[in-house]
């Protein structure tokens, strides 16, 4: 409880700082509307994760408090990387987030899969961290500064007349951050880690961890690498399209609900990645809006998984058959979440996709938008399969699911977010421009 109260306080302080522009610690970190909004989102996301935790960890018989501490460390890292000014802090933040994530992935010590996930994540993660460091070093070598505003000024003044090592450095950073957000072809860790980790951790990693990494990714591009070089833009677009297709096509074949969500998370990364080549004034807004809707939909989708985990070992999609009869509210919430992930109006996910597509098409990447549209058509098959399963057929075994208040609360809030933002997206548009 104290933890949650602390997070609420932090959330409040973040909001209270709105409109103030300051930088701290010798210009390492700055508080602006971008960092504040993303920090608030990450804090809220962690809060939900802590709120849902006690019941889950009690059943697994794991020390809840240790894990909560790890989540808070990860949150600290996340806040660092959405507010950094100095590339040094970006690296420290990423490491803080990553190391906490490695521990979290392995938090179910007695479970072999969880150990495997942690080890895989740790080994690959360390390798890609070195890419980040190398990239930062190269950028420093060319520009002579770690400060993103200085780098940005240097790059825009050079106007293309810049040492090629700069581009190599940029590419290294893209590879490293691409790994963190699980973009193809650096996504291989994601399905295994998401699937192997305890479901609670999967929720945390695929929402807080991912949105934080995206926040850092876009912040870096918006401040240091504008305008995005043509080839880098094309390259990230290709990465984005590949990620969508790999995620969506793989999700089609998963029987496990959890693994399906893991691949769906990869696919959603692909869509979000379209903001990177389209960096510019509108991109922060697009990422923030999509971040909120993605988190809200994920919270609902994973809550069902967490509830299922309380009653049965099986994580098969067929466990959801007939859910609507047992629990209409839960089924309705999941329906809205799936529609939102699939991008069907009037849910928030539709406007998010629309916003994203407009941004990308406006930046001249119309072909990527066409591919994105086709891949979202593929995603209908598995998102709608969940809806169909819930509403048709009879449950094989009647699970007498009791939804604890913490779960009802977070599902309800997420539901409100998805519907409210879907009907009135104007609340958030133009916030960060």
């Amino acid at each position, binding site marked *: 409880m104290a933890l949650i109260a602390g997070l609420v306080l932090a959330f409040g302080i973040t909001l209270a700082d709105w409109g103030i522009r300051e930088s701290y610690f010798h210009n390492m970190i700055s508080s602006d509307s971008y960092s504040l909004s993303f920090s608030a989102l990450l804090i809220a996301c962690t809060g939900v994760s802590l709120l849902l935790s006690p019941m889950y960890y009690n059943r697994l018989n794991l020390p809840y408090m240790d894990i909560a501490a790890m989540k808070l460390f990860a949150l600290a890292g996340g806040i660092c990387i959405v507010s950094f000014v100095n590339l040094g802090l970006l690296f420290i933040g990423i490491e803080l987030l990553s190391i906490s994530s490695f521990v979290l992935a392995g938090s179910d010590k007695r479970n072999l899969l969880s150990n495997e996930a942690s080890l895989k994540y740790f080994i690959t993660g360390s390798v890609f961290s070195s890419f980040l460091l190398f990239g930062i070093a190269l950028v420093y070598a060319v520009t002579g500064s770690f400060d993103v505003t200085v780098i940005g000024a240097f790059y825009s003044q050079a106007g293309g007349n810049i040492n090629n090592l700069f581009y190599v450095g940029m590419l290294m950073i893209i590879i490293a951050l691409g790994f963190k957000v699980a973009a193809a072809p650096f996504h291989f860790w994601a399905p295994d880690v998401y699937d192997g980790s305890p479901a609670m951790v999967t929720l945390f990693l695929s929402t807080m961890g991912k949105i934080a990494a995206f926040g850092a990714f876009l912040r870096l591009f918006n401040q240091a690498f504008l305008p995005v070089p043509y080839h880098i833009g094309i390259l990230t677009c290709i990465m984005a399209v590949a990620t969508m297709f790999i995620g969506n096509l793989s999700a089609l074949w998963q029987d496990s609900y959890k693994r399906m969500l893991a691949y769906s998370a990869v696919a959603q990364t692909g869509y979000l990645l379209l903001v990177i080549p389209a960096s510019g004034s509108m991109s922060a*807004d697009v990422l923030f809006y999509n971040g909120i809707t993605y988190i809200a939909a994920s919270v609902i989708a994973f809550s069902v998984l967490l509830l299922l985990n309380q009653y049965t070992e099986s994580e098969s999609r067929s466990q959801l058959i007939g859910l609507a009869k047992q629990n209409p509210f839960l089924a309705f919430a999941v329906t809205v979440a799936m*529609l939102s992930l699939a991008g*069907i*109006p*009037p849910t928030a996910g*539709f*406007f998010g996709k*629309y*916003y994203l*597509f*407009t941004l990308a*098409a*406006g930046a001249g990447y*119309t072909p990527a*938008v*066409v591919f994105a*549209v*086709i891949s*979202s*058509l593929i995603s*209908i*098959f598995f998102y*709608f399969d969940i809806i*169909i399963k819930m*509403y*048709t057929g009879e449950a094989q075994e009647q699970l007498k699911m009791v939804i604890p208040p913490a779960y009802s609360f977070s599902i309800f809030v997420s539901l409100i977010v998805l519907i409210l933002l879907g009907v*009135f*997206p*104007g609340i958030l*548009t*133009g916030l960060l*421009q």
Partner: protein
Amino acid sequence: MIVTILIVLPLLFGLAAIFSNGRSVRNAALAVSLAEFCLALYAAYSFVPQAGMQQVLNLPWIPALGIHYHVGVDGIGLLLILLTALLMPFILYSTPDDIPKPGAYYGLMLVMQAALIGVFSALDGFLFYVFWEMALIPIWFLCLLWGRGNTVAVTLKFFIYTLFGSLLMLVALIYLYLQTPQPHSFSLEVLYAVSNLDANVQGWLFWAFFLAFAIKIPIFPFHSWQPDTYVTAPTQGTMLLSGIMLKMGIYGAMRWLIPVLPMGVHNWMPVAVALSVAGAVYASVIALQQNDLKRMLAYSSMAHVGIIGAGLFSLTANGLTGVVFQMLAHGINTVALFYVADIIERRNNTRNLNLLGGIALADPRFSVLVFVCVLGAVAFPLTNGFIGEFYLLYGLFEYNLPMCIAGGLTVILGAAYMLQFFQKTMFGNAISTPHKPVYAGKSELYVLVPLTAIILLTGIYPKPLLNLAAPAIEQLLQLAQF
């Protein structure tokens, strides 16, 4: 303002009904749909045909992106709203009393009505798209949960098909939006004024829009979702789909395709007309060979809309007049015929035409009413179908003679299969024995008598309806020039 009420009223009641769980929800839904009809009649009464867009309401919705809640009606939109509001009470009333989960069923129906009226009145591209997609969700659930047979596969096919078209349209809309002068806008007038697109780009955009509409209508060869869906859906779902929903595609082309991309339309017009006519002939030939009553009606519906599509893309004043009128006529006739099919199927437990017979003897009243519907469907003079087909073929004649001949052929084929249907079901000896000999009981008459009356009345005196739409059609033709 009336248009907004027409959208919001069923939406609110529908959402409330989905979460309610009482038997009284049927009466409430009927009351709402009747209120809608009265409101729509009032809107038609206060409508001034020459005055362009009316009942306009324009509120900023997402100001940062220039997206508005902007609705209003001209003659074409108004007639379709009237059609929706008119058919909805019949569709709801014809629902069997013992339908499972009545709350969700009637709720989805009302949400559907709200989305349809939204489509027919939206004057902002984004709003139009939202309503367009919103209409898909309730009908998908209706077919999935209350349909019969392999609903999961069939409805998913239907959904994916239509969503594919819609998403292409979304990309085209976004592209157009980015071509509008700063600050970008989705407003209809602004989109009409976009003139910096060359023929090549217009061609691409034309196909993106055309696919979306052609799938919905459906125009050959994008129709393969349709027969299965019509047969699997609950009868009321089929009524919605064929009576109102496919008009979304035709209306969409009139409002968002022809005036926005005149050059693209002009270049691809022959292809669109040829596909439409080919589809109409193809569907007529298949309809002739069907033994399944519902399947036959599904193909007959496809044949009719094929001719509507051909008239639409012929871009002549007569053709467009025919399109507007035939949309109404087809909506009424097809709803009546699917209802007839449902009555026959319920009594006999079969839809097989070869097993049916002798209905005229069992219930002559019923057979007379069915005969009027059949006459409407085969475009017999003094029925509404005649007026529509006449204008359509006239328009096609002005456009291209061979196309008109091929189109005329479908009318003859139509007469063949419809009369065959009438003969097989009404006369001869019944092979199956109905478990209830009376076909037209009181509640059936409440639906069939008004519908047949409308078929005859609008066939004898179509002028008021034609007058309503004439200025809007004239304006459309002006916009189609470039």
